[in-house]
């Protein structure tokens, strides 16, 4: 059914429908990516803080 | 505590700046008639401590008490009793020395200009009273700041390196003023890198690196 050409044409509105779906999905993807990066960076900061504390002790 | 709760006390003040643990549990008690000389190497947190004591900085943990009450709870009363002089002279460049005093001191107590002029003369800058603070020399600015502290008539003085930029005579004057203040039952916390040549007793609070 998806393969019927009418689906992708979206009744002539493909030009508007697909970019908006695409943009919204891209925003979802960005959120996943940036949240994970945010978490990873926080871990790096913590590790650095731990290292600093160790070097201050010694 | 079983002692009567007067004066300024600090209990286990902890402050972090960035990743540095600057103040690690500082405690002290300063009773009326006491001068506390805060000293220690550069960057050990003397200025930070003074800003905590005057309420501009909230410590991560620990309490500052005035007459037994935490200072946040009695803010306006505490601020009436306290005067803080920071590293900088805190003068408005476009106002004259006298006007600077008028608007700073005037918010604490009513005071006629004549009395402020006398105070300025006492700290050796009577002739600069009508010059805009912008053109004053570093030492003259300090002396105006000293006049502000005097004119406030507060019980508690928190002074951050008040000897900076003063000439020999200015230093002696400041010492005499401190002596007088403490002698009259006031409290003073003074940050300075050299020994204070006061006649009265001096407590010392050392901040270590």
């Amino acid at each position: 059914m998806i393969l019927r050409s009418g689906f992708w044409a979206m009744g002539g509105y493909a030009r508007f429908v697909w970019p908006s779906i695409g943009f919204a999905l891209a925003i979802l993807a960005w959120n996943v990516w940036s949240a994970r990066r945010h978490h990873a960076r926080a871990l790096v900061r913590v590790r650095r803080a731990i290292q600093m504390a160790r070097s201050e002790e010694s | 505590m079983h002692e009567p709760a007067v004066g300024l006390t600090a209990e286990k003040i902890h402050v972090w700046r960035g990743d540095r643990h600057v103040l690690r549990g500082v405690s002290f008690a300063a009773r009326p008639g006491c001068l506390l000389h805060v000293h220690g190497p550069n960057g050990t947190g003397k200025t930070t401590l003074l800003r905590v004591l005057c309420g501009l900085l909230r410590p991560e943990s620990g309490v500052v008490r005035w007459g037994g009450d935490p200072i946040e709870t009695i803010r306006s009363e505490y601020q009436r009793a306290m005067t803080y002089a920071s590293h900088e002279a805190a003068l408005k460049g476009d106002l004259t020395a006298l006007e600077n005093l008028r608007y700073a001191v005037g918010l604490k107590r009513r005071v006629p200009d004549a009395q402020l002029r006398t105070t300025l003369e006492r700290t050796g800058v009577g002739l600069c009273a009508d010059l805009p603070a912008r053109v004053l020399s570093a030492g003259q600015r300090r002396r105006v700041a000293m006049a502000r502290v005097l004119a406030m008539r507060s019980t508690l003085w928190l002074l951050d390196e008040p000897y900076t930029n003063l000439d020999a005579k200015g230093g002696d004057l400041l010492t005499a003023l401190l002596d007088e203040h403490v002698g009259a039952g006031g409290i003073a916390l003074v940050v300075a890198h050299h020994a204070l040549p006061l006649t009265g007793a001096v407590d010392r609070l050392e901040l270590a690196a």
Partner: protein
Amino acid sequence: MWKWFHRLASPPHLYRTAAAFAPWFAFAAALLIGYGLVDGLVFAPPDYQQGDAFRIIYVHAPSAWLSLFGYTTMAVAGAIALIWRIKVGYAVAAAAAPVGASFTLSALVTGSLWGRPMWGTYWAWDPRLTSELILLFLYFGVISLRKAFEDPNRGDRASALLGIVGFVNVPIVHFSVYWWNSLHQGGTVMRLGKPEMPGSMLWPLLAMLAGFMCFFGAVLCVRVRGEILSRERQSTWVREVVSA
């Protein structure tokens, strides 16, 4: 209740709670969004007026919803933190801001793409549209104010305050279609009583709304964890968690 609230407000507890919830939210979001997309794009009938262009609603309405929900989360968390001095509130507010801003952008872009076939223009200075744009600016303001401070504590409090002040805009966005005569259509889903949409169109929309909310929850959990970690990096529990 109060006790539960206080327990949640302790950073290690919230850190663990968020970790426990995140996968469930993510799982639900994937299911709901997957179903909503397929049913909405493939099976739902075309609108009798708008034709297939109406399908943009399946991403536009949830995005727009989250833009407001995200702001509300941010402002409420900030207010809780400011008023009761509950530090994790700042972590939640900081975590919600970029997520909400991204959905605001999504609402604006999908809305413009929808506006072109419906109103003949990508952009009009209409109350709903304008107030949504203001919402984006407010998000930017809050985010850059937080970053502008060297000291994270002050940045947190300042941006929480700005978030609260800017909250006045949220009802404006929502009610603008009723208060002014607007190009933008009024509420269709959230109307009390019977929605005017047929079920075949409505179910995927509701699924998308729920899916986006779950997605927001999942992302928020991950971000809150990150915020808590870097805020509490001096504390012993974080050190134990990380070095373990």
